């Protein structure tokens, strides 16, 4: 296959090639969709641990005393109330309440670290700059800094020997500034897999050696490199949205199932009035989890019916090892068809196959 020269490479590109990773274009980057196989990598993350390159994701920094207050005017969740070193999920919306991006903020002593989806990196950078404040300095590290994730039940065991702080004591959705194998890093107990795990923000220059050292040392504990294919399966099982599927500029955080993050008690933010009206009317199409009754897999875009009536479409779908090998996914359906237990029909190659609405998530770690 020809690879357009315009595709960007992360600092870990040579590692993926050396590991036999299958590289595909993703959000402007050449990224590994799999190494040994999606199911094997999924199993490694659920039972042991997986190592992910997430350096394609956008890393922005917000500097200045006013940064958190400024971010509060642009996002649905609270930023200024974050404790030092806390991480928090958040969403940017437009005036109509449509989702521009779903993100994570990390509160460091002197700055906020903002991680945006790779697919929205340029749009979000433009959005932030267009609303910039003289009191806030924005820095764009997209593609230059690296992000390595260690995810799985053995993540602490594998990573602890490399880190100069007690990572076992680091709380979920908190971070620290630490040295990892001598490399300055932000170590965060966050992830997108439904497992315990860590995300390591490091310089691009130091990332390859760290990646190799982690993989080498972690192999004995079952650490495997894992690609974007396994990551998508893992996040869907964990009930986590993926921008472009459960969220979009046409889908508000409420519709996308992220209403818990919308803080209408905040004084003002872009999209607040639209979201308040939507919540009040409560008549919008929304995301729900579903499982196919039979063995035929659904795919994104397949039409969804309730009786004879079309009520929506499949948004995400996957075979799910952690949900009994069933075919699971999310649908975007009318409110009346979104309640757990609702019988649905999914049209697959001209035939309607039975499915049911089920509560999210499909997988919760014990």
């Amino acid at each position, binding site marked *: *296959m020809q690879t357009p020269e315009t595709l960007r490479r992360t600092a870990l590109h040579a590692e993926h090639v050396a590991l036999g990773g299958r590289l595909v274009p993703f959000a402007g980057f050449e990224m590994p*969709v*799999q190494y040994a*196989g*999606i*199911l094997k990598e999924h199993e490694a993350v659920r039972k042991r641990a997986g190592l992910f390159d997430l350096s394609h994701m956008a890393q922005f920094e917000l500097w200045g005393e006013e940064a958190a207050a400024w971010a509060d005017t642009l996002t649905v969740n609270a930023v200024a109330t974050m404790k030092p070193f806390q991480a928090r999920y958040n969403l940017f919306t437009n005036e109509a309440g449509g989702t521009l991006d779903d993100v994570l903020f990390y509160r460091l002593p002197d700055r906020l670290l903002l991680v945006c989806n790779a697919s929205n990196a340029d749009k979000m950078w433009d959005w932030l700059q267009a609303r910039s404040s003289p009191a806030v300095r924005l820095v764009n590290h997209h593609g230059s800094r690296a992000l390595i994730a260690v995810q799985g039940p053995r993540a602490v065991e594998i990573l602890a020997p490399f880190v100069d702080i007690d990572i076992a004591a680091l709380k979920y959705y908190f971070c620290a500034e630490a040295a990892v194998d001598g490399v300055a890093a932000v170590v965060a107990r966050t992830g997108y897999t439904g497992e315990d795990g860590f995300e390591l923000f490091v310089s691009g220059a130091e990332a390859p050696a760290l990646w190799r050292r982690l993989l080498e040392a972690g192999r004995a504990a079952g650490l495997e490199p894992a690609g974007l*294919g396994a990551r998508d*399966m893992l996040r869907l099982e964990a009930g986590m949205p993926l921008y472009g599927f459960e969220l979009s500029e046409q889908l508000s955080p409420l519709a996308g199932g992220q209403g818990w993050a919308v803080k209408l008690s905040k004084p003002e933010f872009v999209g607040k009035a639209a979201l308040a009206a939507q919540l009040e009317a409560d008549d919008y199409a929304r995301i729900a989890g579903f499982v196919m009754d039979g*063995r*035929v*897999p659904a*795919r994104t875009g397949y039409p969804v019916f309730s009786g004879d009536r079309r009520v929506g479409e499949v948004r995400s779908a*996957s*075979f799910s090892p952690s949900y009994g090998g069933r*075919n699971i996914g999310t649908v975007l359906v009318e409110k009346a068809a979104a309640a757990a237990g609702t019988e649905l029909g999914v049209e697959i*190659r001209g035939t309607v196959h039975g499915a049911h609405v089920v509560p999210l998530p499909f997988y919760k770690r014990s």
Partner: protein
Amino acid sequence: MAQPEGLLYSKEHEWTKIEGDLATVGITDYAQNSLGDIVYVELPRVGQVLKQHASVGVVESVKAVSDLFTPVGGEVVEINGALEGDPALVNREPFAGGWLYRVRVADASAPEGLLSPADYEALVAEGAH
């Protein structure tokens, strides 16, 4: 990697082994590897009469749906029932236990438009880059 001898191959990465008037059909190792983890196989029905090169089913992996084009025409006489409970057999043994279906060919002479092992290997080597 050499392709197994004694089989004929299609450009769509199916193989067939013809023994008398029976032809067994499967997908190649290259095909299963390109698809990745196979989670569902939709096969033609026993008794169905297939036209050579027609789309007769699908092979679905975790990431993709792929049409199955039959390299030989004829009446389906048997399907591989083991694949319903274990579609990954196609990944593990594409040329053996992961066969898909058997047809009774109308004309036992070699079907047209298929490739020898050497010609198929050349096709794969070209496509792999």
